[in-house]
């Protein structure tokens, strides 16, 4: 029983490692690289334009330190059969959960410290801070997170597990109070508040006998969201895409399946109603639009437009095999090359639509029409090149 957690932790690590390797194999690394580069560049350009201490800067800091306390969850690694097999292990499961809490705490603290570190240049620009105060700021972030994890731990208990609203409130209000004290009064007072809240939580919530139903459900939800994340990059067996009717999108379906060939009929519906591919494409399009909207005009803006159009186009490829396992697509009396033609048509339409949306968003909050027109022309050329060359090559590869 004592070894159970460390065994599961190493299994869990292996699993994550396997998926991370797949994530960092894709074009996505390039995109992330650009994305972080662009954000860091934008951040560094933006800081000097700030005057010292405006009314809203402290609100931003309070908000930021409240949000970074939410990053990093309690990973218990409890599995569904555990309530049956471990039911008699009352003492053992207590130790197990303590180990899990420590493990989660360490990981969460690392992320919190990174989060606080990101805010530091902003804080130093807008506030006058001594070295001791900076240390206090980091300590507040760390104590806030420890507080948060303990609240998460008690939310799995028999006694408090069912009070979800209370748990949720504590997740947000405790760090918020400490952050307010830290930025409105001063970091030392913030630290004192954070410590008092932490002690209160630890002393008050001591009866932590586990509520199996909630513990299993919470861990399953957590794992599911982890899998969902990885599923953005690769196929995770336990995450299958759902189907949604999306009646409001019937116009889009009709436009995509124009011509009423069986394959275009199928692909249009697979794309719009399957949550997987359309989810990635719409999320990436939205992300791209937000980034090019916020990014100051210039070559970087155009580069991001080009990159996102390409990235989204690559995400459409898995649709080709959507119906490979369905016998009927093999026994319909349809010419063999019709599938390729119709698939390319869908690619062309979706890519064009998404390219136009991103290019339009690049008008930016400064309403730079010139920039937008340039991007629009480049986007149209890119879509043309993708359709003419790239898709032909990719679809031929898929045929094999």
């Amino acid at each position, binding site marked *: 029983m004592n070894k159970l957690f460390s065994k599961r932790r190493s299994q869990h690590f292996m699993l994550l490692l396997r998926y991370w390797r797949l994530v960092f194999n894709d074009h996505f690394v390039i995109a992330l690289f650009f994305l972080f580069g662009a954000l860091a560049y934008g951040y560094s350009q933006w800081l000097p334009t700030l005057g010292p201490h405006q009314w809203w800067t402290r609100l931003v800091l309070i908000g930021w330190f409240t949000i970074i306390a939410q990053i990093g969850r309690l990973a218990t690694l409890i599995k569904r059969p555990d309530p049956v097999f471990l039911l008699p292990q009352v003492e053992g499961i207590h130790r197990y959960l303590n180990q899990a809490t420590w493990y989660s705490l360490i990981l969460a603290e690392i992320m919190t410290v990174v989060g606080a570190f990101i805010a530091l240049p902003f804080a130093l620009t807008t506030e006058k801070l001594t070295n001791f105060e900076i240390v206090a700021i980091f300590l507040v972030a760390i104590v806030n997170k420890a507080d948060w994890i303990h609240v998460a731990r008690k939310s799995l208990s028999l006694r408090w597990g069912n009070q979800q609203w209370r748990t949720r409130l504590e997740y947000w209000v405790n760090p918020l109070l400490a952050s307010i004290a830290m930025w409105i009064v001063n970091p030392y007072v913030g630290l004192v508040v954070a410590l008092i809240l932490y002690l209160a939580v630890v002393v008050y919530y001591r009866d932590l006998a586990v509520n199996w139903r909630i513990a299993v459900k919470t861990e399953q939800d957590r794992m599911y969201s982890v899998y969902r994340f990885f599923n953005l990059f690769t196929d995770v067996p336990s995450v299958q895409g759902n*189907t949604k*009717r999306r009646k409001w999108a019937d116009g889009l379906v009709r436009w995509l399946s124009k011509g009423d060939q*069986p394959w275009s009929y199928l692909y249009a519906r697979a794309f719009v109603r399957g949550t997987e591919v359309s989810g990635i494409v719409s999320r990436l399009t939205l992300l791209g639009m937000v980034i090019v909207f916020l990014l100051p005009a210039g070559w970087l803006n155009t580069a991001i437009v080009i990159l996102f159009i390409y990235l989204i186009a690559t995400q459409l490829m898995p649709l080709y095999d959507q119906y490979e396992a*369905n016998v009927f697509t*093999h026994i*319909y*009396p349809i010419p*063999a090359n019709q599938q390729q033609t119709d698939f390319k048509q869908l690619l062309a339409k979706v890519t064009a639509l998404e390219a136009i949306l991103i290019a339009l968003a690049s008008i930016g909050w400064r309403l730079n029409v010139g920039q937008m027109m340039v991007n629009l022309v480049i986007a149209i050329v890119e879509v043309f090149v993708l359709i003419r060359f790239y898709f032909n090559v990719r679809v031929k590869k898929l045929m094999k």
Partner: protein
Amino acid sequence: MALEINKLVGGYSQIPVLKDVSFDVQPGELVGLIGLNGAGKSTTLNHVIGLLRPFSGSIKINGLTIQTNPEEYKKQIAYVPETPILYDELTLREHINLTIMAYQLDHDEAWQRATKLLKMFRLDNKLEWFPANFSKGMKQKVMICCAFMTNAKLLIIDEPFYGLDPLAVHDLLELIEQKKKEGVAVLMSTHVLDTAQRYCDRFVLLANGKVRAHGTLEELRTAGDYAGESLDEIYLHLAKGDQHE
């Protein structure tokens, strides 16, 4: 001759499952394909619908082969699979529309036929639903509707009775009867031998990938000296005989 299988050797990988299978189905005739689990019934049907390529031998439908004229060949066939196979993203109405497009049917005329079938199976009020969420029996009914609304000359039906309620079984047999009158050839694999005995015109008994016997019930009886016995009993004799070999 609607379907003509000649010395078919075939299977999934290198190892042949079917060894020298020959039989035919005439227009307006219902032929029952009978055999134990693993005898090669579904493999035979998969060859006929063109999912598998014969190692040797030939399959002809109205004189066409899949090698020389794949589209015309496929147009001759409608297929009801053993387990329902549906598109997750399509509503029932869209399944019907897709079938019309795939077989290039006349839209209004095909919808008339489809509506009649859907009414018969009490599915006409579920046109906007996703059949992927239906029960097994209802899914099977959708498959039947999609196959019977075409004007294919050869119907391939794989184990159609499982999961269907008695009324639907009766309706299906009625539909097959109608199709036969229109001159459609039907090849049906099944385990339900008493139903097969009553409705099939001829039988092909498969065992270990070979045709063990074929012909009408009378022919089977005289060939094996089983006078007066039912298809069930004849089949048990043959199957047990095989096991002792």
